[in-house]
């Protein structure tokens, strides 16, 4: 046994193989409501689960966490029943634990590194994170941390997704004057308009935003930067000293197959925005309508596809089919989401891709023709590339199609900001510190990496916030770092 595998403490801890099960809403019930599916641990359950942790001397789980939460530390506090302290320990590095505990892909991050997981269930780190954060909030024990004295510097944050919220939260504590500009009428980014209520209750996002407001962050809604105000104007007219761009990956992708513009064919972002942000699930109490299909097809195999499929199910679909062009192994969605979707009766048709939609006389989609695929040699992503099987097609009846094949960079802001260099996919080019090619402008989150995760967006926000603070303290330092000797050497070889 290597040292890291050795549990801490004198006497060897008894290994408990299975994690404490999380109570969940029954699938038959939950497909008729939009309430959260996993119900959360009770304090007793949380303590029992926390006690499974081996408290490794050299914990690997922390390496698996993009923001390096002190996992053994907070888990130990939960085990001791010090729930509020546990929440505060997490918040030292992760300001949105109630959200991350729910939506982070722990199975490929912290929990993938857990030593227990080698033979048994890994410690349920995500569930414990959620528990601690919920406990602190529900008991009304969230405290406002002390703020540094005002620096007199003004920072604009464009976009209120997890990247922007993190930047704002960190910089306000350092004494800067922070304003978030958000294009939509509600703050939160994908947390608000993309991820459905049954996976992330909007009340939680609202409370996190409210917390920032109480700290003194100003939030200007309905402001599209690049349209209502340009980047130049943020500096020249509104007097900001630094700008962080966290506008997400807000450009829906379509496949450009015939019939894709028929009524009843949505991009996932339109479908989910209507359902979540505009609350079309409560139509006609809310005015925004949505097509409620009976035979729904969702194209894609990521979290977004699962969210769309499960939303359609709750909006009354009799049958929801996910069409994915690769096989089960390559599906990018989290294991838990696939599992929940299956429990809810979502059908998976793998190795196929739509090639044509046909509609009725009103222009509404009625059928989809699909091409069957097989797996060929691996592509640049390392996953085996799907190749069409000649002549193998099939047709499904459908009255609602949701295209969830990813998103790209929305050029609305960058078109109006010529000083900002983009990479070849149209995302903003930023260095390790989040600096763009333009002085005093940082970027982070999906607009830099392409669609990724909440925690990576937050991580990018943290890094940028640290550098913004550094810059505001020495604004005359050179903007572009001199390449280190090592970098020069490696670029020469």
């Amino acid at each position, binding site marked *: 046994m290597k040292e890291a595998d050795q549990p801490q403490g004198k006497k060897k801890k008894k290994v408990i193989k299975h994690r404490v099960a999380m109570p969940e809403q029954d699938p038959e019930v939950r497909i008729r409501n939009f309430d959260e599916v996993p119900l959360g641990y009770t304090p007793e359950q949380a303590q029992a689960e926390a006690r499974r942790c081996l408290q490794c001397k050299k914990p690997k789980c922390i390496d698996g966490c993009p923001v390096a939460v002190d996992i053994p530390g907070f888990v130990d506090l939960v085990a001791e029943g010090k729930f509020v302290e546990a929440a505060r320990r997490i918040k030292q590095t992760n300001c949105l634990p109630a959200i991350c505990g729910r939506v982070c892909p722990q199975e490929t991050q912290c929990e993938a590194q857990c030593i227990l997981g080698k033979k048994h269930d890994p410690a349920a780190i995500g569930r414990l994170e959620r528990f601690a954060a919920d406990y602190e909030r529900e008991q009304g024990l969230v405290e406002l941390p002390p703020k540094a004295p005002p620096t007199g510097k003004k920072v604009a944050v464009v976009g209120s997704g997890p990247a922007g919220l993190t930047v704002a939260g960190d910089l306000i504590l350092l004494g800067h004057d922070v304003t978030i500009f958000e294009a939509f009428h509600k703050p939160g980014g994908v947390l608000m308009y993309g991820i459905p209520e049954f996976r992330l209750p909007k009340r939680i996002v609202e409370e996190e935003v409210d917390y920032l407001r109480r700290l003194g962050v100003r939030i200007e809604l309905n402001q599209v930067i690049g*349209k209502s105000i340009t980047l130049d104007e943020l500096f020249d007219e509104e007097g900001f000293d630094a700008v962080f761009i966290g506008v997400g990956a807000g450009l829906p992708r*379509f496949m450009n197959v015939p019939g894709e513009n028929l009524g009843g064919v949505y991009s996932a972002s339109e479908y989910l925005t209507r359902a979540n942000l505009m*609350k079309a699930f409560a139509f006609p109490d809310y005015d925004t309508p949505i097509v409620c299909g009976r035979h729904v097809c969702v194209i894609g195999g990521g979290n977004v596809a699962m969210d769309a499929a499960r939303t359609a199910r709750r909006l009354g679909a009799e049958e929801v089919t996910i069409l994915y062009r690769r096989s089960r192994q390559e599906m990018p969605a989290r294991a838990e989401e696939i599992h929940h979707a299956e429990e809810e009766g979502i059908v998976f048709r793998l190795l196929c891709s739509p090639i044509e939609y046909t509609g009725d006389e*009103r222009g509404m989609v009625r059928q989809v023709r699909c091409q069957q695929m097989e797996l060929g040699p691996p592509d640049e992503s390392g996953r085996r590339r799907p190749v069409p099987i000649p002549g193998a097609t099939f047709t499904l009846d459908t009255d609602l199609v949701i295209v969830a094949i990813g998103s790209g960079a929305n050029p609305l802001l960058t078109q109006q900001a010529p000083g900002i260099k983009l990479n070849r996919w149209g995302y903003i080019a930023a260095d390790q510190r989040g600096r763009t090619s333009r002085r005093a402008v940082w970027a982070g989150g999906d607009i830099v990496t392409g669609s990724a995760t909440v925690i990576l967006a937050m991580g990018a926000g943290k890094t940028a916030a640290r550098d913004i603070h550094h810059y505001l303290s020495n604004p005359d330092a050179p903007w572009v770092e001199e390449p280190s000797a090592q970098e020069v050497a490696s670029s020469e070889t």
Partner: protein
Amino acid sequence: MARILAKSELAPKIHEIVVEAPRIARKALPGHFVVVMPDEHGERIPLTIADFDRHQGTITLVMMVVGASTLKLSRLEVGQSFYALIGPLGKPSEVEAAGTVVMVAGGVGAAPVYPIARAFYELGDRVITIQGARSRELLFWTDRLAAVSHRHIITTDDGSFGRKGLVTDPLREVLEEDRDKAIGCVYAIGPAVMMKFCARTTEPFGVKTVVSLNSIMVDGTGMCGGCRVDVGGQTLFTCVDGPEFDGHRVDWDLLISRQNIYHEQEACSLEKYLQQFQGEHAT
């Protein structure tokens, strides 16, 4: 902000609303639109900016009541505010000297046509405006349009005012009379069917024809694709690539069918709202 400073009913179901919106007014150009939400439960409705006053910091919107959200919008009183007002969105009109321009305004389209006509007029172009409505009572802003036009032709479907007939009749005549090819471009703004037939009318004359499409939208910033249209075989987004497009290249049948996706739901939500409204006012 987004406070209503003045409002009036221009014609049955057609309302003019002047809103306080200094940031939008500062940037507004002819052809731009805004997205409006009457209240938290409302839809996001795109409306073309019908006028703007940079000094006063106001914009003017003209809207027709067609569903629950537009009805709610029309019922907001002076002093109240929209729940949300976002803009200016879309690409502005390309106002470049064109010699003579023909502005065709159908119904409520008179409002978005006005700032564009004014811009051409101020540029020194000769402006011929053809304004149509179903009947006399639905005509509005005739004086405003006349003030920025060298020639102003009015048609009504029922002949209750001006010429009897559709806007396409005078449009064809104007083009036929134009032997020395002075007409550089035609603008047609109004209901989709009217724009479609205007584009058909001008096509044989080979005159550039710009239309402003009224697709159903959600965000208005290119994030959802709900507003997609087919222009010359290419899928474009009305909110960011438009709203103005080459009328000869638009797939009109697709536009019209996409405008009707929610036909049934819209009727249902209007009915629900009316019942609720009557309930409240009966007591």
